[in-house]
């Protein structure tokens, strides 16, 4: 960017609001008993309702309502005692009814917020959540499977979604990214969705506009679609904002339109069809009565809400006396946090548990691409291993070997230690014998150590550890070596 362009950019402020669609983790679809599972053969999960056969009618999935309510409460929204489903009408081959059942002027929930960090002065940065509403997903148009034809897969037709609409409160691409990451973390914590952008269980559309710094009125916005990662959203926002600034600086005006992000080219381009000009002809869905939620049902849902990330971070700091970095790492993922808590409680030493989970466990998960839910080392077994180390039954080095065997076999640590002969050896005779062998093999180093070259102590002890396959008790070994060589 040239200096002039940078200066121009600095005259403008980015204003972003996000619309996030999240697939709810229900067993069945929103309005019929078909499986909502991802990945079935095309059109296997369909019935008269989600195929929109003549005469079929929707019946609301109560579990979807429970999950949507949980999400709305976690986003600090006011869940409405009465909300109304509405039809959003448009023609598209993968929308079998010719309308999507959604909510329009009476959504499930209104007026929440998400905290995405703190300003330098310490004030929290809150992004407003305008509304959370329920709707159903459309099917999928497959354009690349049959030459010259489009195939329709309606497995996804009728899968329950929530749409989370934010206020235009974000002022940078980084803030938009932070909002999405916090949102994803919250939704994972409350277990309402797989929140997987690659599989399409989380989708983001961004409304972005530019306004001259210091002004309060919003500029004309464009809607940017087709991003498939959070970093893609951030890049797309930067590119679209730069485009708008260039237009405005040249004295032009922004046209309200839909832009499509091309991640490979790093460009945005106007959508071919003018989606912004759609008239969806919303009206209340006559096939479904208004959704009425009793106050005590909503209160129960609030009461049953799992601990949210912010609360868990605060508790980890106070209950386990962990530093800020440890807390961040251990609470990033709810399952990792659960895992850590189980280990820490079983073992009784939170810091040691933290070191192992953050070290060995996360490294193993990362390098093997495993999911912690299917990790073979269960928390109780890891706590048992930590107990063996604390009690001096195995050395730290041996513990790492045992851990890798646990990852591979799922066997308990004591059994592995026994089987593999990794129980620490503190028998004086055996230690002395290994020491004798090492001194004999390294006469030069032994002589120099005897002459006061202290750093060679480590070399000799290391050689014994190696010979003992990590079993030698290092403390006792050090004592023996000092006695022998007067070091």
């Amino acid at each position, binding site marked *: 960017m040239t200096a002039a362009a940078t200066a121009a950019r600095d005259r403008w402020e980015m204003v972003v609001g996000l619309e996030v669609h999240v697939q709810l983790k229900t067993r069945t679809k929103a309005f019929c008993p078909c499986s909502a599972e991802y990945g079935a053969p095309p059109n296997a999960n369909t019935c*008269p309702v989600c195929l929109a056969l*003549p*005469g079929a009618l929707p019946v609301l999935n109560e579990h979807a309502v429970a999950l949507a309510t949980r999400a709305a409460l976690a986003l600090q929204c006011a869940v409405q005692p009465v909300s109304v489903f509405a039809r959003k009408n448009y023609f598209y081959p993968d929308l*079998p009814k*010719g309308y999507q059942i959604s909510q329009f002027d009476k959504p499930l929930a209104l007026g929440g917020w998400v905290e995405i960090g703190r300003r330098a002065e310490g004030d929290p940065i809150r992004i407003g959540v305008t509304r959370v509403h329920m709707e159903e997903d459309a099917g999928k148009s497959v354009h690349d499977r049959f030459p010259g034809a489009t195939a329709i897969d309606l497995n996804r037709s009728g899968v329950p979604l929530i749409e989370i609409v934010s206020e235009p409160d974000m002022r940078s691409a980084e803030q938009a990214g932070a909002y999405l990451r916090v949102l994803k973390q919250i939704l994972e914590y409350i277990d309402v969705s797989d929140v997987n952008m690659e599989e399409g269980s989380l989708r983001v559309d961004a409304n972005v506009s530019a306004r001259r710094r210091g002004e309060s009125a919003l500029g004309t916005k464009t809607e940017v679609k087709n991003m498939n990662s959070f970093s893609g959203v951030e890049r797309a926002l930067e590119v679209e904002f730069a485009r708008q600034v260039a237009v405005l600086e040249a004295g032009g005006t922004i046209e309200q339109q839909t832009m499509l992000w091309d991640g490979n080219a790093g460009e945005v381009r106007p959508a071919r069809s003018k989606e912004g000009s759609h008239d969806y*002809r*919303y009206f209340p869905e*006559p*096939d479904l009565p208004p959704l009425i939620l009793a106050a005590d049902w909503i209160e129960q849902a609030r009461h049953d809400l799992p601990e949210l990330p912010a609360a868990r971070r605060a508790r980890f700091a106070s209950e386990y006396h962990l530093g800020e970095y440890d807390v961040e790492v251990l609470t990033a993922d709810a399952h990792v946090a659960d895992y850590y808590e189980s280990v820490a409680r079983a073992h009784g030493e939170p810091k040691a548990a933290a070191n192992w989970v953050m070290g060995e466990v996360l490294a193993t998960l990362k390098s093997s691409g495993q999911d912690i839910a299917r990790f073979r080392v269960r928390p109780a077994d890891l706590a048992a291993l930590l107990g063996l180390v604390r009690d001096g039954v195995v050395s730290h080095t041996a513990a790492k070997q045992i851990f890798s065997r646990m990852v591979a076999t799922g066997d308990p640590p004591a059994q592995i230690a026994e089987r593999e002969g990794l129980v620490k050896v503190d028998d004086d005779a055996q230690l002395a014998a290994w020491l004798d062998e090492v001194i004999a093999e390294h006469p030069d180093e032994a002589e120099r150590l005897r002459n006061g070259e202290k750093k060679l102590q480590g070399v000799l002890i290391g050689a014994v550890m190696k010979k003992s396959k990590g079993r030698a008790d290092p403390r006792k070994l050090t004592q023996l070596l000092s006695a022998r060589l007067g070091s």
Partner: protein
Amino acid sequence: MTAPSCADLRADVAAGRATAAETLSAAIRRAREVDTGADRLNVFVWRDDADARAQAEALADRLADTTPGPLLGVPVAVKDNIATLALPTTCGSRILEGYVSPYEATVARRLRDAGAVIVGKTNMDEFAMGSSTEHSAYGPTRNPVAPDRVPGGSSGGSAAAVAAGIVPLALGSETGGSVRQPAAFCGIVGVKPTYGRVSRYGLVAFASSLDQVGVFGRTVDDAARGLGVVAGHDPRDSTSAQIPVPDYTAAAGADVKGLVVGLPTEYFPASLDPAIRARCDAAIDRLRSLGATVKEVSLPHTSLAIPVYYIVAPAEASSNLARFDGVRYGLRLTGDGLRGMYDATRSGGFGPEVTRRILLGTYVLSAGYYDAYYRKAQQARTLIAGDFRRVFDSGVHVLFTPTAPSTAFPIGAISDPYEMYLSDIFTATANLAGVPAMSLPIGRVGGLPVGGQFLASHFDEPRMFAAAYALERALGGEAHA
């Protein structure tokens, strides 16, 4: 016509005096007579006599059951917008030509479970939009009483099936009077139950907030038995009520002493055909002589019904009929690309009346017009419902009115759509308010049947049937003279 009633047929079959196969054969014989004879009534659009016979024969096994179904061996006709397994379900439209539903409407299943045998699918105005059964892709149906005249509509085929003596019971559907008006035109009984009384699952939607499956019977008792079988909660229809179904035949012999019958003045305008008014007056005199208290009442928002109906119904229809897009089933005509396929299929598949209503409905829901039309119409609908609530809360048990402003008109006589829409002037209110209503024959004018209408409060079908049973009994042969 001396065709046997539901009760007689069922009793004969249950007692072994006749078999379901025999009752069905008689129905098929009569159907062939009227559809291929000189009158060519064009009652049925789809029949599969072999399949119907197989169903009837399978019913023989039911006799071994401890409780034979309430419609055991009764042949029935079903309107072509109700999903059935063996026969096509085409809504009288070209766009569904050849479509056979892979699932069955709840009402069709309940009929079969009760021991009834479905004889065929009856003709109708395309997608139930019309009041004459002239707007069918499969040609008009003729009135069995006067074959140069319409049978009314949109359920004209079902009304004709009963009036021609083919079956004692038929299913129709109502959105604004599509059962009651043809019942009146054909001289039979037609019932539109309370909204939510009967499952709509499998009824191809026209206007979801108004649609309700209705029944035709030759007599009040036939209709009461039919409704008793198809009514009741259905978990597949979220708008169906979880209210137990009473025995509608319980009031068969009851008197109407102390029954308060309201006569809404708005339904007896000065412009009402004096001959129809005279028939109504005679019926009212009978009710009075039976001990009912008759009094004038007012439903002041009645005049809003037709304009409101012709906003709400097309609005919902424009959305409900969007699924007929050529993508998954029914007619597909090719055009230039996707848009061209949509245009060709829908232009070629829908007739002019359906097209008119889709356009009307699309217009009233459009941005900038929604508040002026659809929202306003919903507000007016609330006023119409309020009229009924006030009257029924004031101690009136049932209302009595003429069913239609005219008798059956000649085929082709009405070409102005708005004039046709006025056929529903006395019936659309019940659909807008969701209250039950029924038509029964109260005499003839110039040889053509006149229908009288009873309306009752939500789920008060028992009182409505009580009034109808009593009036039918009091009128006797006069009802058809």
